[in-house]
């Protein structure tokens, strides 16, 4: 029973953590190599890792998606998709995909003469599922070691979520101590009282039986 409880608890928190890690914005320092557009098949379950820029896109089994090819400051490649999030989840309300595509095209640079950009994005890159993080915005920085800035959005959102969970937890504990624990004790007490009564009665019967024994 204890293991089942722990399994549920761990699974729940891993799911919450994964959800937040996917949805919250992150920043990478990159050099943009190329921008391109490619037809993508979107009719399997990995559809959830692509956006719904407009109503028609729900019905399409494939459509063109814009990509931004980059090399990160540590020399490893990273490819971002560039899609409107529109009015759907996650709530970035991104509508300027074409503008960002233009900015990114304008920001390409070579290895010999690199220009570095901070790219804000959400989502995951996974080679097996062929999924890509969605780029949100670009900002030029001095070099590959430049600061990415303080992640105020993440600080505010995570603090708020922690506060909400804490508030619920405190109230639940208080409720349990006031309402549920006394009930359980009551049940336990009456159970023990019943047990005592039974053993007392048995003692009396035994004493009575003993009177018939030959001494």
């Amino acid at each position, binding site marked *: 029973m204890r293991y089942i409880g722990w399994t549920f608890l761990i699974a729940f928190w891993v799911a919450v953590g994964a959800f937040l890690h996917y949805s919250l914005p992150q920043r990478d320092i990159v050099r943009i190599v190329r921008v391109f557009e490619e037809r993508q098949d979107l009719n399997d379950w990995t559809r959830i890792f692509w956006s*719904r820029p*407009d*109503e028609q896109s729900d019905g399409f089994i494939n459509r063109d998606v814009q990509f931004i090819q980059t090399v990160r400051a540590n020399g490893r490649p990273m490819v971002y998709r560039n899609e409107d999030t*529109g*009015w*759907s989840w996650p*709530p*970035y*309300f*991104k*509508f*300027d995909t074409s*503008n960002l595509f233009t900015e990114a095209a304008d920001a390409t640079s070579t290895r010999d003469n690199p220009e570095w950009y901070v790219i804000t994005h959400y989502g995951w890159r996974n080679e097996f599922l062929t999924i890509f993080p969605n780029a*949100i*915005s670009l900002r030029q920085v001095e070099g590959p070691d430049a600061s990415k800035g303080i992640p105020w959005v993440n600080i505010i959102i995570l603090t708020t979520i922690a506060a909400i969970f804490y508030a619920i937890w405190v109230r639940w504990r208080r409720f349990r101590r006031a309402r549920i624990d006394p009930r359980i004790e009551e049940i336990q007490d009456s159970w023990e009282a019943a047990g005592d009564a039974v053993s007392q009665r048995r003692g009396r019967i035994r004493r009575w039986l003993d009177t018939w024994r030959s001494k």
Partner: protein
Amino acid sequence: MALARLFLIFFVVLTVIYVSLSFYSRARARDRLEAEWDAGDKPGPREAYVKHGLADYDGSLRRKLILGVYIVPTLLVCLIIYLVNFA
């Protein structure tokens, strides 16, 4: 349509919060008035005092501030749209 769906979800969730908060706030106001009367020195019967106090509460700024439940998220969405697309 996606916008309509967003509006609908926002409206339902925020209305639940708004109604709960209104009831909570009014109950708090009533408790406060009753405690004030019980502390003594207040004219008239208890019922009348509480009723009058609640009528004041109904016209108060505190009650109108609960409308912020609708206004704050809307402003937040506008702010996000501006920051993501135009800043």
